[in-house]
């Protein structure tokens, strides 16, 4: 077995750990979020981007999280597939809806950010397009989970799909950027942070940390839900046979 810390491999220890860890991460998220927003909003309006930079405070973190959540999903899938960790399967299943949620948020805030500049609600910009395809991957993962009756087979099939997604994601990113340079020239987002005035550097960092710990908290809560679901299924089986 891999020498992982006990709370990662043993459901009992994980439930005890997450009982206090989930609210803790939630609190951290709120504190950092408020600090980030307060810092970001008290800075003088950045003249070039005027006010839309304030949307970036809530766009950049979700864009990062949509990828990070998939990385968590894929590594949990690998753990569940190779080392048959039940907890890892619960973690992968729990990460999918959150990742999809953050991807949706990225798309929404991205189009709102660009709207004043583009004049339209959606532009087939390289980053937004690959976010959209990432959303389709989350959808495919959740659809596969939802339509497999046998839990155990469904878990392994989803783990395999999780790994296929991890393999294809960088290829999709590359091909979308290649497609973008072919058809449109420069992308709308001038390579994210670098065009950001230094005064906004810290607020963005704080917001990214806040959102990441929010994800951590939500993920733990959802994994607890998945553990309870598996325990309920086991109890139902026992009751059926008793």
């Amino acid at each position, binding site marked *: 077995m891999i020498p992982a810390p006990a709370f990662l491999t043993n459901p009992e220890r994980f439930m005890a750990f997450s009982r206090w860890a989930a609210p803790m991460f939630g609190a951290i998220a709120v504190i950092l979020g408020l600090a980030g927003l307060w810092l970001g909003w008290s800075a003088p309006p950045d003249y070039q981007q005027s006010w839309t930079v304030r949307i970036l405070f809530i766009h950049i973190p979700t864009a990062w999280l949509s990828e990070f959540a998939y990385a968590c999903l894929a590594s949990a899938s690998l753990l569940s597939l190779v080392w048959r960790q039940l907890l890892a399967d619960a973690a992968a299943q729990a990460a999918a809806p959150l990742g999809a949620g953050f991807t949706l948020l990225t798309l929404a805030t991205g189009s709102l950010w660009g709207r004043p500049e583009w004049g339209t609600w959606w532009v087939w910009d390289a980053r937004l397009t690959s976010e959209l395809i990432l959303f389709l991957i989350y959808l*495919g993962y959740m659809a*596969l989970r939802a339509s497999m009756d046998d839990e155990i087979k469904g878990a392994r099939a989803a783990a395999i799909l999780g790994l*296929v997604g991890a393999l294809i994601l960088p290829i999709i990113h590359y*091909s979308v950027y290649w497609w973008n340079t072919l058809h449109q020239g420069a992308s709308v987002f001038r390579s994210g942070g670098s065009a950001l005035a230094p005064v906004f550097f810290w607020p963005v960092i704080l917001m990214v940390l806040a959102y990441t710990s929010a994800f951590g908290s939500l993920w733990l809560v959802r994994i607890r839900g998945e553990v309870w679901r598996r325990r309920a299924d086991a109890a139902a089986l026992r009751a059926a046979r008793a």
Partner: protein
Amino acid sequence: MSRFSTLLARETALAWGRGGGPMVSVGFYAGVATLLPLAIGPEPARLAAIAPGAAWVALALASLLSLDRLFERDYEDGALDHLTLSPVPLELTCAAKCFGQWLATGAPLALAAPVAAIALGAPLSLTPLILACALIGGLAFAFTGGIGAALSLGARRGGLLTAVIVLPLFTPPVIFGGGVLSAFLSGLPWTAGFVLLCAYALAFVALGPLFMAAACRNALS
């Protein structure tokens, strides 16, 4: 090696289905290509602009549709058990299935692609290129689609689920193929895109069967 060639012959024959397989796929392809002008309007100028791209997307959809019986038939009637209990590794068997699928329906679709493109207004000069792209792209669609078909074994609504799983895997070949065709028409260099399309197809000819075999073993257990 005789086992593999016998298997490939069987898979191709099954996918060919006495002409039924390609007929259905090409029929669907022609159907989609016919719907487009009905929806967009017959003006040649407007149609010609989207002709190569539309022909390419319709090819991807047609390849997708001819996939759902790739593993399901053998899974349901028990043949997959016997195909697994053999010295030929399951990965190779899955590759043979996808290859047979490509030969029986991918190739005829590739022949139909130039016809559809020209019907929609693409210039005749595009024919050799779209034929080559359709052949290589068909290979990519078959081997990525095979992953979706294997993963959705034993699932409800298998065919539709395969499509939802597989469409993200189709985006790179759709991008590369579409890019090659539009670059060719506007006189830009198109070889880079074509090489990328070939690289993608070969990558999944190599990697796809690994995922398919794992998915089949999971479905059989």
